[in-house]
Structures are given as structure tokens and as C-alpha cells.
């Protein structure tokens, strides 16, 4: 008990050169011949950089958002395709096979917000996409790659939850019905059943807008961060009712992004206070406060091997290796 805690760790390496605030990060492992993990970063000036984690240099730069901020990056499970969402109201689908970097398709968005989209693979080639819809409080569900609009999820008239702020599509192992978690502007998190187009459950987690959420489908437990000084952990029971398990106080307000590591053991948050916070996912015990950046952090991402990356307004991307040996 008497042993003092180990000193706060340093980043494994830092990626510089985006020339602009970093707003989106995404790891992609084994794209080209299993060996070379990649990191995609999207920045304020509309560029998407593809970093090699071996050489720690930029491999390619993608530019198709007209100088507008790139807010979301996601690779598709099928392989070498990348989705990038920008503030120019476009969602581009890139083909990256064998060094290509061409836009093969794009979806026109109708919402100006910072709400990121979400994807869910439905079959070999088909996948579902959730993006903010035309009305301020709507979410649009698209069938891809055909871009067929499946439905629009609009809350009931008296609910008034405000704009959707973050989306998370998922599917329980036992059923084939896709579900969507939406964090709203009024601080509530709602669970939508897409096939029935209705809200299964909605719970008020925060008093400020929900900025980000992540969901662990194994434990049916999720976490959300907001503009306030607390993280909320909520769970979903068999009746598909959400309930808040606990809230965890943090020192400074504002959580821009929250991610659970793919092995469901730790989670990381991106704080407006320039700090990354790492928690034990099961117990929510604080494990580390990483103070490296000098400006607000916009996004965090985990690789499958446990590597953690954080992108900040100070134009740097820090990459950390925490609790990976076990």
C-alpha cells in the first residue's frame, strides 16, 4: 500500500504535421498485407491524413471536403474502404485498395451539426448507416451501398430532446434487429428500435448536451460524456430499458469523446481540459490522467492491439501504449 503510484506516463510517440486541429481519428489494422497498421486522422482544414504506424510518417493525404472540418472517419469491415464525414455536408466513401485514393461515392448530408455518423455491417456487402437527418431532431437511417433511405427517426412531438449529438448503431448477438443509441442535446440517451421506429427507452444522464457515447454490447453497458463535469455509466436490461448505473465526477468539465477499448477493459476520454483520462471500464476506477496536449482534445481512438491515440486542437496526435502487456 505504501508504494507511491508510478509517475504519469509519456506518449509512445507524437505525430505532427497535420497543420490544423485534429477532429477525427481512426485505427485500421492490417490493411496492406497484415503487417502495417494505419492511423487515419481528419483535421479542421478538411484533409484526411493516413499515417503509417511503422514509419510514423504520413503515407497519403486525402482532400475532398473543400477545406471544411472532417468530423468522422470509419473504415468498413469489408476491407479497404474509408468513410469520411465533413462539415461540407458530404460523407465520402473512399476506395483505398492497392494504394488508390479515389472517392467512389458520397452521401449528401442535411445537418450542419458536429454529430458523427455510425455504421453497422448487415451482411457480406450491405451495411447500415445512421446520420443526422434533415430536421434538427431527426436521425436518418440509410441502407448502403445503395443509399436507400430506410427510415427517419423522429422523436415524439412532446419529447423535445433537441439535436442528436452522437449515434451508436449496434445489434444484440441474439437478435437481428438493429438498435440505435442516440445522445441528445438535452443530456438524455435514447435507445431506438429501428425496425419499429420507436424509442424503446430514454434516460436523462446529463444536464448538458451529450457529446459522445460508447456502448459495450457484451456487458450491455454504455458510457457517455457531456459538456458537464461528469461521466455517466448506464446499462440496458432485458426489457431494453436504460438506466443510469452511476455518474463519475471529473475535475474539469467537457468530454469531447469517449471510447471503450476493443477488449472492453479500459476506456479513454478526450477532455476539453487538454487531458486524456483513462478509467477501468468495469469498476470505473480512474487509472491515469494524461497531460500532454496544450489545447482541448477532440477525439480518442483505440487500435485492436490496445494502442491509444488522441487528437487535439494543438495540431498534434499523441499515441500511447497503456496496459497493453496483460
Amino acid at each position, binding site marked *: 500500500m505504501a508504494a507511491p*503510484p508510478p*509517475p504519469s506516463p509519456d506518449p509512445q510517440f507524437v505525430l505532427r504535421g497535420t497543420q490544423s486541429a485534429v477532429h477525427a481519428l481512426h485505427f485500421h489494422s492490417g490493411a496492406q498485407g497484415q503487417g502495417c497498421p494505419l492511423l487515419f486522422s481528419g483535421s479542421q482544414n478538411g484533409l484526411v491524413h493516413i499515417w503509417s504506424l511503422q514509419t510514423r510518417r504520413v503515407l497519403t493525404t486525402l482532400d475532398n471536403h473543400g477545406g471544411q472540418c472532417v468530423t468522422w472517419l470509419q473504415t468498413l469491415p469489408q476491407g479497404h474502404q474509408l468513410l469520411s464525414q465533413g462539415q461540407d455536408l458530404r460523407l465520402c466513401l473512399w476506395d483505398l485498395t492497392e494504394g488508390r485514393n479515389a472517392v467512389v461515392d458520397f452521401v449528401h448530408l442535411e445537418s450542419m451539426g458536429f454529430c458523427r455518423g455510425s455504421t453497422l455491417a448487415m451482411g457480406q456487402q450491405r451495411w447500415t448507416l445512421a446520420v443526422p437527418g434533415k430536421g434538427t431532431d431527426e436521425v436518418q437511417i440509410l441502407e448502403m451501398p445503395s443509399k436507400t433511405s430506410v427510415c427517419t427517426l423522429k422523436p415524439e412531438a412532446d419529447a423535445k430532446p433537441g439535436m442528436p449529438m452522437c449515434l451508436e448503431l449496434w445489434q444484440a448477438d441474439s437478435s437481428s434487429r438493429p438498435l440505435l443509441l442516440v445522445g441528445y442535446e438535452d443530456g438524455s440517451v435514447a435507445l431506438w428500435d429501428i425496425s419499429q421506429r420507436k424509442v424503446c427507452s430514454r434516460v436523462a444522464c446529463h444536464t448538458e448536451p451529450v457529446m459522445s457515447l460508447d456502448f459495450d454490447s457484451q456487458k450491455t*453497458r454504455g458510457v457517455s460524456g457531456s459538456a458537464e463535469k461528469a461521466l455517466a455509466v448506464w446499462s440496458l436490461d432485458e426489457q431494453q430499458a436504460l438506466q443510469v448505473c452511476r455518474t463519475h465526477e471529473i475535475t474539469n468539465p467537457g468530454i469531447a469523446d469517449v471510447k471503450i477499448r476493443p477488449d472492453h477493459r479500459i476506456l479513454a476520454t478526450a477532455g476539453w481540459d487538454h487531458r486524456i483520462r483513462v478509467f477501468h471500464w*468495469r469498476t470505473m476506477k480512474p487509472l*491515469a*490522467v494524461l*497531460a500532454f496536449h496544450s489545447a482541448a482534445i477532440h477525439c480518442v481512438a483505440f487500435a485492436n492491439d490496445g494502442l491509444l491515440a488522441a487528437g487535439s486542437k494543438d495540431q498534434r496526435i499523441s499515441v500511447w501504449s497503456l496496459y497493453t502487456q*496483460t
Partner: protein
Amino acid sequence: MEPAAVAAAVRLAVQEAVRTLRSSEDGGTVLSALGRLQRFLGGTDAPALPDEQQEFARLHLATVLRCLVSRLSPAWLELLPAGQLEELWASFFLKGPADQAFLVLMESIEATEGPSFRLMKVAELLARFLGAGRLTAVLEGQCRQPQEPAFPLFQETLLARLVGLPDLLGNQLQRENLTIFLPQNYFPLLAKETARALGTVVDSLRGGSDCSVSFVSQVLGKACVQRRHKEVLGVLVPQLTVLTEGSCLWQRVCWRLLEQVPDRATEAVLTGLVEAVPGPEVLSRLLGNLVVKNKKAQFVMTRKLLFLQYRHKTQELRSLLGYLALDSQRRPMLVQVLKELLETWGSSSAIRHTPLEQQCYVSKAVLLGLGLLDEVELRASREELLASLMAGVSCRLDSSLPAARRLGMVVAEVASARIQPEGPPLKFQYQDDELSRELLALATPQPVGDSPSRTSLQAASAPAETPEKGALGDGAPQTQPQGSDSEPDSDDEFVPYDMSGDKELKSSKAPTYVRDCLEALSACEDWERWEAALRALEALVLRSPAATREVSVELTRALLHLEERTSVVGFDGLRQRALVAVTVTDPAPVAEYLTSQFYTLNYSLRQRMDILDVLTLAAQELSRPGRLRKAPQPSSPGPPSWPDNAPAPAWRAVVEERIRGKTRRFSRGSARSIPAGDPNSFSAVAGYFFFPLIQRFDRPLVTFDLLGDDHLVLGRLAHTLGALMYLAVNTGAAVAMGKALLEFVWALRFHSDAYVRQGLLTAVSAVLLSMPAQRLLEDLPDELLEVRSWLAGSESCSAGSRAVAQWIKCTWCKAQGLVRILV
């Protein structure tokens, strides 16, 4: 046989035996004479007739016993072998009528001078007498209805001897005294014997014969008057408590016992009784309706213990008021007492002139009494009670003593909730302390008649409950952690990293120049910058004195007018420290500005008091020796402003250790140099601080009237002036300051507010401490005499606590010492 003949026969026999005893030196003759006398005491083989025995006891026993004592000597005792004679001799005292034996023993002890063989023998016999429980017999003898009217002088003597025994023995035996005669042993014994005697009385009452307990009452009264109530009642009350439970006869005897206590002892007995009983029910059982019957008892119980004294504990108050509440005949008295208590509590004169301890005492009594009233009684006298209560609350809230204010708030909250439960509750903000918690605890109405057996039952049942609670408490957290079911616990080996750097983030940068601070503080809408400027200011001022001097007065103005518009932690401390730093850096102009602002319009009392505080603190800092060499430390604990301060000592220690390891020293002396003397920086500027403050206190403004309502500020002013005077010790201005200050004190010496008077006392003490004695004597002889007489007067009427009285006394002694030199 004719009575006359019996008398003659007995007289003849006794006279002959006594003559033999007086003269004979022969063992056999003495033995036979004693044997003849012993027949009259009974208990031998051939006892005398009962008539003869009575005659002997009535008339001759004392003579015989005196004669026996007078013969006592080592030679006489050895007339017969093996202590036979001594045993026989003692038996006359132990077996005969106890009262006479006791009196003769006491008499002979009193008459014997100095330690001697006879004295020791008699004292030992007395110890045997007490040990054999003969005191019971003495008391019983007086309780039994005598065949002939009691001889008052005899009873009086017996009473004095019974109660005065420890004193007499102590005086006579000096260091040879036996333990049984020590008061702490004797009085419990007396109490035990009293209880036994009362037992006999009860038995004989059951048997149908008359008895009187008035003698026992007198013994009890006299012992209590001699302040032995703790020893006597400490033993007697528990016994009576047990005996009176469930026995009407015992209760009657007990009531009678206390009724017959002489008037002059009533107070002592009742006070002792209230202290000794465990609770109101016992008190009620022992006392009965004494307060209704006896005027003196009523006075003691309803006035003296409540209004004239305040040393009793809360438990005693509870017993007393509970006793009044327990009987329907006494309840009107309780209501009356409560009204009077509240009246006293609310009287502004009482608040000003009684010590705080007494006010607390009355407050406790009020709360206890309110707890005892029932709804009907409360409703009947609600208006009256509320009026007194509110008067007291408003007077106390006006008081400048914080303790009095708090007392007012607590009592107001509790009492108003009780008097008017349906109204909106009163709520004050005050800090909890021991007293307030105690008062709040008194408010909960206790079930009347909380007998000790019931409390012991509760006590016994309490521990039985706690384990259950503990088990519940343990069980609850086990359900808390979620997802712990099937999870492997390997994650627990994740060791947290150091998170001590996780502090609140301040986004704006602190200003680097004093002028920037001034700008940020005076006209700034950026609150983070404002706060950062406030936090940085003190350090900046101290770091750059030259830059500060350029803007010192402006900076002071800005700080003085600063309002806490956002809730900054430690705002008052930051502002005050910054002001002090500015004043210290540029004393003369800033002090001039501050003192002039003290007497202008448009300041709040708070700001004026801030000015006084800042002046005191700055003067203290200026007069601190060695302040120029040492960097000033932040004095009061504010929020830690530099988080990187903490690791510094660690590396410094490492570096110093390394240097020490590589340095060889040739001589071992103390490394520290003796602090060099410094000029007192306050000396040059003391006048700027002091004189403008003292000049204008008697000129009222529209918003500020020191001699009127604002006596709190006046008190602070007096304290500040005293502090400035004290800090100006050994400076040139001290004499002039002292003179002015004594005039100030003279003008205000009969102020009605206790806090102001305390301030004046500070000022006088400071003058006496700071001014050189010679200057005092030469320049201010008249003032000194006046101060002395004021102190002498105020010592007697110090309405504050004892500490203040003590303080006055010390100051007076100092003044007196000086005056003595003068005269």
C-alpha cells in the same frame, strides 16, 4: 418497689462503686465495682430490674462514664492482666445508651489537650463506636418519641457534635488522626447510618408507634450547610431512591424528612439534592410537593437555582424543570417560571449586563422548559412567549459579541419551532459548535419520567441493535459493483498512474505586470482574467515594488472597491493580502488614502472594517524584524496557486545531500548566523497609520456614526488603535500616540457595549506596554491615575467572561505599579 426507693437504691450503689473506682488501685476491687455497675446496663447473668436500669441510664450513666474516662491510664489498665480491664471499660461505652456514651466520648476528646495516651485510647474507642454502627442508635434515640419532652439544649449539643466530629477530631489528633474521622469517610458513614435509622423509623411506624424525624432533618441540614452535601446525599439519595420506589410509607417519611429541614438549610439541601438525583422522577418522589407547601423551598427551586445561579449542569436543570412538570399542582409554577425565564432571556439590560455563561444557562433552561410544556399550555401563553423571545433575538443579533449572536440564533430557531410549529421555520446561518449542538439536542422533548430503570433498559437494548445495522451496512456494498459476476479479476492488477496533477484548469494567463493587474481588476468583463489578476497580484506587488509605487493609490482604490462578483475561492483572503502587500510596499501614501477613506461617505461597514484590518496587518508586517532579508511567506492558507511548488523540496533535499557528501568541513560551528538587527520600518510611518484614524471618530456622517449605532466598528477601531500602538513600541511617535490614545479611551470609557470596552482595554494595555515607563510617568501622570481608577471600576462590573476580568486585573496591576512609582 416505690420509684423513690428505686432511685435511692440505685444512687447508693452507683455512688459506692464510683467511689471505689476513683480511689482503688487494686485490680480485684475495681473489677467487682465494675461488675456491680454492669448489672445496670443489662446483658449480664443477673441484670438489674428494668426500673433500675432506666434510672441508671437517666441519671447516673454520664457520671460513671466520665469517671471511667478520668481513670484511664496505662497503670490503671494493667491492674488486671491481658487487657481484661480495657475490654470491660470499653463495654460500658459500646453497650449502654448510645447518645450519652457519644457525648461523653466527644466531651473527653475535646477536654484532653494534645496527643496523649488517654486521647488515643478514647479516639480508638470512638472509632470502635462508629464502626459498630452505634450512630444509628444515637439517631434512633432521637427519633423515638421520648417519654418526656426533649431537652433542646441536649439535642443542640448532640447535633453539633454529630456534624462537627471530623473537625473536632482533626483539631485534637492533628497528624495522628484516624481515617474513619476524615470527612470523606465520616459523612458517607453518617449518611448510611441515617438511612438505617430511617429504616427503623419506618418499621416502628408500621408497628403503630409515633416517631419524629426532625432530628435527622436537622443533621442533614447542618451537614449540607457545612458543604458536605456531596458526601451525605451521594450516599443517602441512591438508598432512598431504591427504598421509596413502591413504598408510600417510605415516601411519606422522606417528604417529612425534607419538610423538617430548618429554613436556613433549605437551600443547601435542595441544591445538593438536585445535584444528586439521577432524574426528575426521583426528585419528585423524594421531594413530594415541597415547593407548593414551603415558601423557602419554592424560592430556592424556582428563583435561586434558575435566575441567581448559573453553575448547575444541564442534567440538574433537567431534573429541576422536570420535577416542576411532573405534578399537576406544580405545573402552573413551571409555566410561570418559563415565562419569567423568557422574559429574562429577552431583556436587553440582562443581555448587556450578565455574563455570557449565565445567558447560556438561561437559554438551556428556556429550551428545556419549552420541551416540557404540552400543546395546551403552549397555546395558552404563545403570544407572551413569542414576544419575549423575539425581543431577545433582536437584541442578541445586534450584539457585537459573536457568541451572543450565535446564541440568539440557535435559541430563536429551536424555540420558535417549538412555540409555533405550524409557522414557517426560522433558519439562520451559523457554524456549529459544541454549545449549539447541545442546545439543539435539548430541543427534542424528552418523555417525562425517564426513570433510571428505563434508561438502563434502553442502554441494554442499544448494543443489541447495532450488530444488525452493521450487518446491513456490510451487505449493501456487496451488491454495488456491477458486472463482477463472471469477470476474471486480472484487470485489478491495472495500477493507477500518479494523478496528482489533475487540477482545475485555468484557461487565461495571469498578468505579468502590476499595471495589467490594475487594468484587469478595475475594468474587466473577462472573469477568468480578473480572477487570475487577483490571484497573481500579491506576488507581483512584492516582486516589483518600484512599479507598485507608481500606481499604489489607484491599486488600493481598485482593491478596496472590489466586489466578489464571481464566487472565487478565498476571495476575501486574496483581496486582503493584496491590499496588505500594497500598503507595505508604499506605506505613507496608501495609509493616508486608506485612513481618509475610513471617514468618508459611501462605504459599507464591511469595507471600513477591511480598512482597519489591512492597516493592522500592514503595520504588523512593517514592524516584523528581519522582513527585508527574508522573502515574505504567504501568511494565511489560501488555495495553492503553484502546483509545481510541491516537488521542489524533494530535489533540493537530494542536491543538498549530494553537496554535503562531497564537501569537507574544517570546523564545526553553527551554520546559522545570528540575525542582524533591522530598523523598524513601521517607525517612520506610524503616524500616517495612527493619527488620521483617531482624529475624527466623534464626527458622525449620514451613513456612519461611530458613537451611535456602529459600535461594532468602533470596537474594531479601538482594537486597531491598540494594535498600532503596540506595534509602534520603541518608536519616536509612541509617546504622542499613547497620549492621544489615552484621551480616546477617556472619552469612551463608559461605553455600553462590551466589545468596545474590550477594545479600550486592548488600547490601554498597549499603551502601558509600548510607552516607556519614564515617559508615562513624566508626561501623562494624570491620565495614568484616571486609567487606574477606570480599570479598578471596570473590574468589578466586567460583564464579559472571567478571562476579561483577569485581563483587567493584570492591566490594573501594571498601572498600579506605575502609579506607585509616581506617588
